[in-house]
C-alpha cells in the first residue's frame, strides 16, 4: 500500500492521525448503481453538467464514515440514500488508518449498508473486525469536524474573496468550528427577557399600588356598598310605588270617569228637565194661543151666524144667482123696452102725422097722443122703477156678494183658526209626547246611575293618593340622584381600583420576576463565558494559524507576498460585540500589502494557505481534503491557474478529492500535471485520477451515474 503525503507531510502535520480512503465501492447509493473509484493523491471528479453525481461520491465517504450528510450533518432519508427500485444501499471504503501520530499506518475497511428497515455497519482495522464499529467511528470520526475541517466548497472561496466582513467572519468561524458558539451567544440574547422583566416589574408595582389604594379606600368601598344597597332598596321601593301609583291612577281615573258619568247624567237630566220645562212652557203658550184662537173662532162664528142669517136656510150662492138672474131678466126686459119710448115717440109722431096707431102691445087701436104719452109716462115710470129695481138688485147683489165674500172669508178664517187650533193641538200633543219621552229618558238615566257610589268616588279623589305617591316617588328620585352622584364620585376616585379577584396574582409575578432575573443573569454569565471562550479560541487558533501559514506560503512559493497573518478585530457597538477577521499581508520589506491589492492568483494562494492552516490546527485534522465545486471559486484565469498549481503541490501533503464542472480547470490541471522540469521529470510527483460522471437513464427510467476515466488515460506517479 502506498502512503501518500510521505509520512503525512511536512513538519506541522507530521504528528497527525487519521484516515485516508484509497478506494470506494458504491452500490445503489443515490444515483450510483454499482461503481468503484480509486483515489490517488489527487482525485478529480468532473462532469459537464450539474447533478451528475460528483458530490455524491463525497457524500458516500461521509456517509460511510459517519452515517450523516456532508453539507447539513443531518440524517438522510431512505429515499435519498437507497437508489430507486433497490432494496438497500451499500458503501465500502478501503483505506489507510493511523490511529495516533506515533503509530504505523494500517489497513482500514468500512462497510455500511442501509436497508429500508435498519442498517448494518462493519469496520475492520488491519483485517480484524472492530467490536463496536459505531462507537469506534463516532470517536474516531467526529461528523461535524470531518465536515468542517475536511470539506471546502468553491463557494466558500468565493465568499472569502468577495463576501462582506460579516459573511467572511461567519465562514471562518465555521471553518474554525466555533460558529456554534456565536449561534449560542445570539440565542442567549436577553433583550426580550429584559423587556418582559420590565413589564413584570411594572405590573408588580401596579398591583402593589392597587393594593395600597384598595386598603386606603376600604372605607370608601364600604360606603360604596352601603350606597349601592340603599340605591337598590330605593329602586325596588320605586318600582313598588310605581305599581301602586298605576293602580291608584286607575282607581282615580275610574272615579273621575264615574263622577263624570254621574255629572253627565245629571247634566243630561238637567238638560232634559229644562227641555221638559220648555215643552211645558210651549204648551202653556199653545194653550194661551188656543184660547185666543177659540175666542177668535167664536167671534167669527157669531159674525158668520149673523151673516148667514141674511141668507136663511138657503145657499148664498143660489140666492145671489137668483138675484143675478132676476137682474138679468130685468135688464133684458129693460133692454128690450129701451125702444118703447122711441116707439111711442114714433107712434106719437105718427099720430101727429095723423096716423092711426094701435097699441103694439094690447093692440088697442086708435090711440091718442095723450094715451101714448100716458103710456110713455107709465112706461117710463115703470121703466124707472125697473131701473131702480135693477139698481136695487145690483146693490143687493153687490151686498150679497160682499156678504158672501165676507162669509167665505170668515169661513176661510174660521177654517184657518180651526187649523191653527188643530195645529196647536197637535203641537201640544207633540210636546206632551216629547215631555213623556224626556221623562222616560230621565227615568232611564236615573236608573243607570244607581250603581255609582258617588260618595265613594269623591272620597277616592279627595284622598289624592296619586299625588301623595308622586310626592314620595319624587323624594325617592331625589335621593337616588344623590346616591348616584355619590357613587359616580366614588367610582371616579376608585376607577383604577379593581376588585380583589381582578388583581393579578402577585406571588406569581414575583416568581416570574425572580426567574427572569435569574435567567437573565445566567444568560449574561453564559454570554460572557462564550465571549471569553470565543476570544480565547480565536486567539489560540489564530496563533497556531499564524505560526504555520507562512510555511504554506513558502511551500506554495508565492511571489511578492512574504508573510500573512490573520487577526481578529473586535469592537463593542451598542452593547453588541462586533468582530471581523483581517488578513494582513506583508511583502519582503515588511510593507503592508492590502489583500484587495493582490492579484487573483496571489489571493487564491493566500486563501489556500489559510485554509490548509485552518485544517491543520483542527483537533481532528485529516490528511484528506474534499474540495467541492471548484468552478464556483470565482477565480479568473490567473487565479485558476494558481489554484491548479497550488492544489497540485498540495497533493503531496494531502489527499485531495476535487469535484469540478469546469473544462478549463480540467484542461489546466491536465497541462500542469504533465509539466516537466528541466531534467525532464514531472514537476508534480503525485498519483492522479481523473473521472468523469455522467447521468444516464436506464431502461426503467431511473437515472444512473456512470463513471469513466477521463479521456482513458491513467496518470500514475513513477514512484
Amino acid at each position, binding site marked *: 500500500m502506498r502512503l501518500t503525503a510521505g509520512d503525512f507531510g511536512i513538519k506541522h502535520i507530521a504528528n497527525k492521525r487519521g484516515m485516508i480512503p484509497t478506494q470506494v465501492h458504491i452500490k445503489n447509493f443515490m444515483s450510483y448503481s454499482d461503481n468503484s473509484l480509486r483515489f490517488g493523491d489527487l482525485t478529480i471528479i468532473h462532469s459537464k453538467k450539474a447533478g451528475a453525481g460528483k458530490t455524491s461520491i463525497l457524500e458516500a465517504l461521509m456517509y460511510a464514515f459517519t452515517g450523516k450528510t456532508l453539507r447539513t450533518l443531518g440524517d438522510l432519508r431512505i429515499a435519498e440514500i437507497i437508489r430507486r427500485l433497490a432494496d438497500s444501499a451499500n458503501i465500502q471504503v478501503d483505506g489507510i488508518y493511523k490511529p495516533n501520530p506515533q503509530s504505523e499506518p494500517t489497513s482500514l475497511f468500512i462497510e455500511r449498508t442501509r436497508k429500508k428497515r435498519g442498517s448494518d455497519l462493519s469496520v475492520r482495522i488491519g483485517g480484524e473486525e472492530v467490536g463496536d464499529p459505531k462507537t469506534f467511528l463516532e470517536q474516531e470520526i467526529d461528523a*461535524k469536524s470531518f465536515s468542517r475541517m475536511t470539506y471546502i466548497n468553491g463557494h466558500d472561496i468565493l465568499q472569502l474573496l468577495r463576501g462582506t466582513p460579516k459573511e467572511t467572519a461567519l465562514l471562518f468561524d465555521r471553518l474554525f468550528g466555533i460558529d456554534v458558539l456565536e*449561534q*449560542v451567544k445570539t*440565542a442567549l440574547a436577553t433583550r426580550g427577557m429584559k423587556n418582559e422583566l420590565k413589564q413584570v416589574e411594572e405590573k408588580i408595582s401596579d398591583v402593589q399600588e392597587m393594593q395600597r389604594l384598595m386598603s386606603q379606600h376600604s372605607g370608601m368601598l364600604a360606603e360604596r356598598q352601603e350606597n349601592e344597597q340603599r340605591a337598590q332598596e330605593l329602586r325596588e321601593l320605586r318600582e313598588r310605588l310605581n305599581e301602586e301609583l298605576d293602580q291608584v291612577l286607575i282607581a282615580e281615573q275610574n272615579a273621575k270617569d264615574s263622577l263624570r258619568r254621574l255629572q253627565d247624567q245629571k247634566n243630561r237630566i238637567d238638560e232634559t228637565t229644562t227641555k221638559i220645562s220648555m215643552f211645558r212652557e210651549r204648551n202653556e203658550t199653545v194653550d194661551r194661543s188656543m184660547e185666543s184662537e177659540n175666542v177668535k173662532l167664536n167671534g167669527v162664528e157669531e159674525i158668520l151666524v149673523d151673516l148667514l142669517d141674511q141668507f136663511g136656510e138657503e145657499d148664498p150662492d143660489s140666492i145671489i144667482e137668483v138675484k143675478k138672474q132676476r137682474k138679468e131678466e130685468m135688464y133684458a126686459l129693460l133692454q128690450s123696452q129701451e125702444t118703447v119710448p122711441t116707439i111711442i115717440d114714433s107712434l106719437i109722431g105718427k099720430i101727429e102725422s095723423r096716423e092711426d096707431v094701435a097699441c103694439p102691445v094690447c093692440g088697442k087701436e086708435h090711440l091718442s097722443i095723450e094715451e101714448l104719452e100716458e103710456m110713455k109716462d107709465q112706461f117710463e115710470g115703470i121703466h124707472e122703477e125697473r131701473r131702480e129695481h135693477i139698481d136695487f138688485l145690483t146693490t143687493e147683489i153687490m151686498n150679497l156678494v160682499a156678504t158672501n165674500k165676507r162669509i167665505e172669508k170668515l169661513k176661510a178664517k174660521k177654517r184657518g183658526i180651526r187649523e191653527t187650533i188643530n195645529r196647536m193641538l197637535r203641537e201640544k200633543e207633540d210636546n206632551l209626547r216629547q215631555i213623556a219621552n224626556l221623562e222616560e229618558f230621565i227615568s232611564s238615566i236615573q236608573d243607570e246611575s244607581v250603581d255609582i257610589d258617588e260618595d265613594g268616588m269623591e272620597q277616592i279623589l279627595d284622598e289624592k293618593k296619586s299625588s301623595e305617591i308622586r310626592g314620595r316617588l319624587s323624594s325617592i328620585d331625589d335621593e337616588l340622584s344623590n346616591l348616584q352622584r355619590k357613587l359616580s364620585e366614588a367610582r371616579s376616585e376608585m376607577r383604577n381600583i379593581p376588585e380583589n379577584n381582578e388583581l393579578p396574582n402577585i406571588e406569581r409575578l414575583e416568581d416570574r420576576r425572580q426567574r427572569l432575573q435569574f435567567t437573565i443573569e445566567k444568560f449574561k454569565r*453564559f454570554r460572557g*463565558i462564550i465571549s471569553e471562550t470565543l476570544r*480565547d479560541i480565536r486567539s489560540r487558533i489564530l496563533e497556531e494559524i499564524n505560526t504555520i501559514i507562512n510555511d504554506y506560503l513558502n511551500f506554495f512559493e508565492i511571489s511578492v507576498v512574504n508573510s500573512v497573518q490573520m487577526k481578529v478585530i473586535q469592537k463593542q457597538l451598542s452593547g453588541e460585540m462586533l468582530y471581523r477577521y483581517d488578513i494582513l499581508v506583508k511583502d519582503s520589506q515588511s510593507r503592508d500589502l492590502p489583500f484587495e491589492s493582490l492579484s487573483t492568483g496571489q489571493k487564491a494562494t493566500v486563501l489556500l494557505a489559510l485554509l490548509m492552516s485552518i485544517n491543520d490546527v483542527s483537533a481532528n485534522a485529516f490528511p484528506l481534503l474534499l474540495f467541492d465545486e471548484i468552478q464556483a471559486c470565482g477565480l479568473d484565469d490567473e487565479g485558476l491557474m494558481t489554484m491548479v498549481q497550488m492544489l497540485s503541490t498540495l497533493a503531496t501533503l494531502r489527499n485531495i478529492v476535487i469535484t469540478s464542472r469546469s473544462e478549463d480547470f480540467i484542461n489546466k490541471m491536465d497541462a500542469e500535471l504533465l509539466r516537466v522540469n528541466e531534467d525532464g521529470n514531472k514537476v508534480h510527483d503525485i498519483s492522479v485520477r481523473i473521472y468523469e460522471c455522467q447521468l444516464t437513464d436506464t431502461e426503467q427510467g431511473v437515472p444512473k451515474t456512470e463513471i469513466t476515466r477521463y479521456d482513458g488515460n491513467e496518470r500514475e506517479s513513477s514512484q
Partner: protein
Amino acid sequence: MNQIEEVIREKTENEEDAEELMELVNTAFESNSALMRKIDRMKEGE
C-alpha cells in the same frame, strides 16, 4: 469540539453552569431549532 469544552470549563466558575452551557453548545451542533427550543424552556424557567 474538545477545545471548546476545555475552554468553557476553564472559564466557568461552577460545574453546573459548565454542564448546562455545554449542553447548549452540543444542541447547537445538532440543530438550531433544537437550540431555540431549549433556550425557550430556559426562559420559562424550566
